[in-house]
């Protein structure tokens, strides 16, 4: 069973329905026992980093997620949930992240040219840089759906696929059992479903 971490951030309808559509069992939960017993975790999230980090802490979910991730349970962060996996964010101030992935979350502006809009919203092609179980069956140029204004910098070889938006935006990141998608796989049509299926069904060890 996949536990989708419920800490009061974001709309989880599509995520839970996309997993159900794929025949993968999941539950939106903040119950400690359920999370500890889960085979895999998904950390969702939309909104601002600082707020989300606070809510994660207030609900006690941060400690649980860290405990599970460190024990080797596959964890997938999506959008803001992916950004929370990094060490630090500079979104409206400076905030500590969960520190499961190397690097920092920085604003797209001023790194990208003036003619490009923020947020980066819409479909963008993936450039595949490295191997990841989530990229099985994904081809160079396959498009995924992004909505974000901040991006990961300094993630090094944890970056498995990027999309070009003035800079190379890390789209899919992974280190060992910790995965992150800056795009929304649950909104990325057949390409996104393929990745969720790989996460849900793969052994990922």
């Amino acid at each position: 069973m996949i536990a989708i971490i419920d800490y009061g951030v974001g709309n989880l309808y599509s995520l839970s329905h996309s997993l159900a559509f794929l025949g993968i069992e999941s539950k939106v939960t903040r119950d400690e026992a359920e999370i500890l017993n889960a085979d895999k975790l998904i950390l969702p999230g939309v909104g601002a980093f600082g707020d989300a980090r606070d809510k994660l802490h207030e609900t006690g979910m941060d400690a649980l997620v860290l405990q599970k991730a460190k024990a080797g349970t596959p964890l997938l962060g999506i959008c803001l949930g992916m950004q929370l996996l990094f060490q630090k964010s500079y979104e409206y101030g400076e905030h500590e992240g969960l520190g499961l992935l190397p690097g920092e979350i920085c604003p797209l502006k001023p790194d990208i040219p003036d003619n490009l809009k923020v947020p980066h919203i819409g479909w963008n092609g993936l450039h595949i840089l490295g191997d990841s179980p989530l990229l099985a069956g994904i081809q160079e140029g396959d498009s995924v759906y992004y909505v974000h204004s901040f991006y990961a910098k300094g993630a090094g070889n944890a970056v498995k696929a990027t999309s070009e938006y003035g800079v190379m935006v890390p789209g899919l990141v992974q280190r060992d059992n910790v995965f992150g998608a800056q795009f929304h796989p649950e909104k990325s049509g057949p390409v996104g479903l393929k990745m969720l299926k790989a996460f849900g069904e793969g052994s990922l060890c």
Partner: protein
Amino acid sequence: MIAKRIIPCLDVRNGRVVKGTNFEGIQDVADPVEMAKYYNDTGADELVFYDITASFEGRGLFTDILKRTAAQVFIPLTVGGGINEVSDFERVLSCGADKVSVNSGAIKDPTLIERAAKRYGDQCVVLSMDVKRVDGQFRIFAKGGRVDTGIDALQWAHDGQERGAGELVVNSIDTDGVKQGFDLEMLAAMAKQVTIPIIASGGAGKMEDFKILFESVPQVDAGLAASIFHRKEVPLPELKRYLGEQGIPMRILREE
């Protein structure tokens, strides 16, 4: 490189898609869920559902359709029509909408934009507007384009962004239904006012109209249309292939 988006719009009244349709391979051509699945499978980049029901029962049917669609279609869904309060955002977001489009509700009370943006984030709030030329000025029209509000459309777009709208849908009443192309002059003027994504609506009649749109107003991010897609006057997969061949960045679905 980010792709330009092509967005079919489904007007739903009493649980059915209005405007004539001509679909092969679909049992029920007016069933919004079947139509949404068809568009999803043929490469639509996003879908807009517009609730034009007046009745309470109709509204219930609409949210049911939304739920069933969102359980099977995994591309962004925008919902509009009858959004007057923050509670209306909640109603459609909890049924699977990703973005909510406000039009009349924002004219009645512009603070709706900022209240919703604060609660759900800018990316969730789409400001939709019907624009018509009056005495050399672009004006906002209300009530489905029947009433001149006297509001300057360029100022309205600018203020909408300031209040927290994350995207604009700009529909030209002057070109809507005429099928002679998008309102390029108006869209170019709009593009000078805002930095958020612009979705152009009104006037598309053939594939070339989309090419001209994206080439002459590069700040436009997406083209929206309804009946030309429903009636297959411009078949969606063909349009996307054509635009891709013409050098417009497109998301093309790969044959499996």
